[in-house]
């Protein structure tokens, strides 16, 4: 069998060259986080889509007044904030895995992940700012 390039090959599990203590538990925690956040997102996102797309006229009834009415309640503020953070981190971590799997060059991998981290920071940060500073009387 021919050997393949370094980025695609993986050390044999008991390879003597493999340093014993080089690994952190980060990937384990991210793996666990995907499952825990997934369970919560299942209810948060499907609930959100049921309300926004199906109940009381669906997407056609959504406007500024509708949003203002919802965010008058701390319950929906908390719902949306939790959903924003979990979806941002769950999706960001998922894309991080995809980038790690498919980018071949270290430089590509680095810049794609930088782009990813900036966009996650931007969306989660902006969304949080909007939720905390929302003013129903802005008009």
């Amino acid at each position: 069998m021919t050997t393949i390039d370094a980025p695609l090959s993986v050390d044999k599990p008991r390879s003597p060259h493999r340093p014993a203590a080089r690994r952190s538990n980060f990937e384990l925690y991210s793996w666990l986080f995907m499952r825990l956040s997934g369970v919560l997102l299942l209810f948060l996102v499907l609930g959100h889509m049921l309300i926004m797309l199906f109940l009381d006229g669906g997407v056609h009834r959504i406007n500024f007044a509708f949003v203002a009415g919802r965010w008058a309640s701390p319950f929906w503020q908390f719902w949306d904030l939790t959903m924003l953070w979990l979806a941002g981190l769950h999706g960001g971590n998922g894309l991080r895995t995809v980038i790690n799997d498919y980018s071949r060059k270290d430089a590509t991998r680095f810049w794609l992940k930088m782009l990813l981290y900036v966009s996650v920071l931007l969306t989660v940060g902006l969304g949080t700012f909007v939720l905390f500073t929302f003013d129903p009387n802005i008009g």
Partner: protein
Amino acid sequence: MASTTASAAEAPQREGNPRAKGSLYRGDLGMWSWVAHRITGVLTFFFLFVHVLDTALVRVSPEAYDTVIETYKSPIMILFELGLLAAVLFHAFNGIRVMLVDFWANGPKYQKPMLWTVLVLWLVLIVPAAISMLTRAVTELFGGH
């Protein structure tokens, strides 16, 4: 799990008796569920990015927000929202299947029947959802305000 299940590491040894024991994942239905899980996840992530930006317009002015939200009500965008729902529903149900494969002792053994369950459940929900969304889109288009 996501990045290791479709690994090619064990493929050569198995070439002798493909699919005989029902434990083959790579190239089989299980692998395609993994591919679909990635694609639906990436698509949903891109929508999330756009969706946070459009919702952030409530901080600019009611007019700016209403103008952009109005585009979500056009028939073509309704089709897009149906596609988003289809992607999210598959990702959600298959995600439960992934968790059962990981945490339930019999999970790996039943991964394929569980995939069929995911697809049936997906179909049972997406068909009435599509009927509801498309009916409303057409109604709004012709008799709506």
